[in-house]
């Protein structure tokens, strides 16, 4: 008997009949050939979140983003007229990476009047135009106007900066993000500017880490020791049930209860949490900022009184978690190989007004890291055993609906890409997709 009501079909999963309820293959997470297809089919074509507007506060502010999976680096900059633009981070002379410090593969940020290539000193205005060519008269009929930086599509939703690396893309960002984003509009993202950012190099396919954060079925077990022992036994006895699950195009969301902030019974939380009134779900008391009450209509869709958080998977690699006590976090998964990716977790709070506020945030941030470390290592363990192929078909339960949806969606993008292109290549790609059990 479920604690929370499910759709009339009897399960969240069966509410979306195309998902099926059968066993699933993880070949899409252990095949180097499949990864090669994903690079173009997914990361070369979808809107990717690369940062927030607070990272480019002034005209001339810029940051770079390494997008290894799409074989590029982009530089995002606020131009002299205040517009946010993006370019492939590449000099037009002989292709050197344009903006970097010390290590070419490390991301950087700053403020400048123009970009100067380290190699031969070509210069570009922050709007991308080429402004200076060293020994220009040595070139042959070269017109600087033809050698501006190569632009990428950039758009901003609620302060989140996205790029799309497909020059022929015609899908606007807001349309791509769909109803979940529309339902969050008006949330005070712009006031939550106190940032804690974590980064890990993880030995697993990118989708496996999304899987880990797209279900909370694991939380009472993997993270059992984070709770005092009575609470831990209680949580494991209950297991986990989400309040609400929903899919929209390639994206998915779940809404969860959150009895820990503050807990009904203070003896169930650790001493430091009792003293500071904070924990995994955030500081127990909401910050004094506007637009948290009432929340935008899409947040807490079931309007449940025990609501604790909403967790969104924006395809392909961007997650957002909005927490009841008034803060949010984002996850990004940047693939670097079929079995490796860079994970970024970023926590956003309203700036602390007092040292006590700041300590409460610190406790939440430290708790996030303690959980995250357990997750990272588990993923390496999963990846290596999946690669053994000793078992190739796996059952997913109803609380894992977002995983089923993620792998199916990735497969659909790869299949759509396969359907295009020259016949010999298409045939080879289809064989790879077939092997991953995704054709049909």
């Amino acid at each position, binding site marked *: 008997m479920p604690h929370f009501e499910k759709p009339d079909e009897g399960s969240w999963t069966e509410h979306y009949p195309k998902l099926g309820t059968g066993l699933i293959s993880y070949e899409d997470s252990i095949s180097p050939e499949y990864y090669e297809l994903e690079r173009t089919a997914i990361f070369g074509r979808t809107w990717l979140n690369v940062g927030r507007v607070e990272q480019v506060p002034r005209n001339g502010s810029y940051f770079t983003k390494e997008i290894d999976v799409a074989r590029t680096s982009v530089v995002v900059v606020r131009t002299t007229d205040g517009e946010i633009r993006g370019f492939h981070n590449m000099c037009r002379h002989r292709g050197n990476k344009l903006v970097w410090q010390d290590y070419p593969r490390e991301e950087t940020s700053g403020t400048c009047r123009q970009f100067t290539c380290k190699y031969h000193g070509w210069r570009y205005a922050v709007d991308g135009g080429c402004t200076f060519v060293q020994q220009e008269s040595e070139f042959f009929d070269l017109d600087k106007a033809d050698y501006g930086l190569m632009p990428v599509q950039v758009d901003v939703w609620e302060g989140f900066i996205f790029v799309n690396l497909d020059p022929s893309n015609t899908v606007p960002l807001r349309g791509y993000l769909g109803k979940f984003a529309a339902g969050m509009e008006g949330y005070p993202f712009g006031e939550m500017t*106190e*940032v*804690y*950012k*974590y*980064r*890990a*190099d*993880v030995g697993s396919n990118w989708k496996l880490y999304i899987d880990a954060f797209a279900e909370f079925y694991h939380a009472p077990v993997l993270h059992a*020791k*984070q*709770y*005092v022992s009575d609470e831990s036994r209680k949580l494991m006895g209950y297991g986990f049930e989400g309040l609400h699950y929903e899919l929209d195009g390639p994206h998915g969301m779940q809404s969860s209860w959150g009895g820990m902030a503050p807990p009904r019974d203070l003896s169930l939380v*650790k*001493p*430091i949490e009792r*003293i*500071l009134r904070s924990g995994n779900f955030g500081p127990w008391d909401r910050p004094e900022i506007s637009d948290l009450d009432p929340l935008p209509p899409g947040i807490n869709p079931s309007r449940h009184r025990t609501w604790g958080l909403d967790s969104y998977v924006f395809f392909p690699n961007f997650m957002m978690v909005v927490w009841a006590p008034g803060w949010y976090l984002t996850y990004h998964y940047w693939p670097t190989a079929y079995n490796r990716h860079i*994970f970024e*977790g*970023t926590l956003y709070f309203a700036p*602390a*007004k*007092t*040292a*006590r*506020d*700041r*300590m409460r*945030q*610190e*406790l939440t*941030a*430290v708790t996030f*890291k*303690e959980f*995250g*470390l*357990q997750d*990272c*290592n*588990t993923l*390496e363990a999963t990846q290596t055993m999946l690669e053994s192929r000793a078992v190739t078909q796996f059952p997913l339960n109803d609380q894992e609906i977002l995983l089923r949806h993620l792998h199916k969606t990735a497969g659909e993008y790869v299949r759509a890409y396969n359907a295009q292109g020259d016949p010999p290549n298409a045939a080879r790609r289809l064989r790879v997709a077939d092997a991953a059990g995704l054709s049909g």
Partner: protein
Amino acid sequence: MTNQLPPQFTDLEPFADWALATERERYAKRLLSTMDELQAFYDAALPRLEEAATYLEQLPLDALPDDARRLLQLCYSLINVSFPIEAWRQPRVPDSGASTLDVVIEPAI
């Protein structure tokens, strides 16, 4: 040696070396400590945490005197050390083995 912490927290002076500016330093010191060392720090500092928070919240967060700033950093270390003591029974996160999760941005204070 002069006092590192505000006068009403002199009992915490033996632990003033936990006043570290970054999470990376605090976490590294935790991993290099024995459980006995962590327990001694926790037992001394936890009963003073509420008083420290009350003392520090009277002061402007962006202009803390040096001794108050060190006290705040010591409290951050206590938060970090609370996990080995209250949850893990060991300095390292269990089953975290070779994995790392590094702070790349944190508030200046």
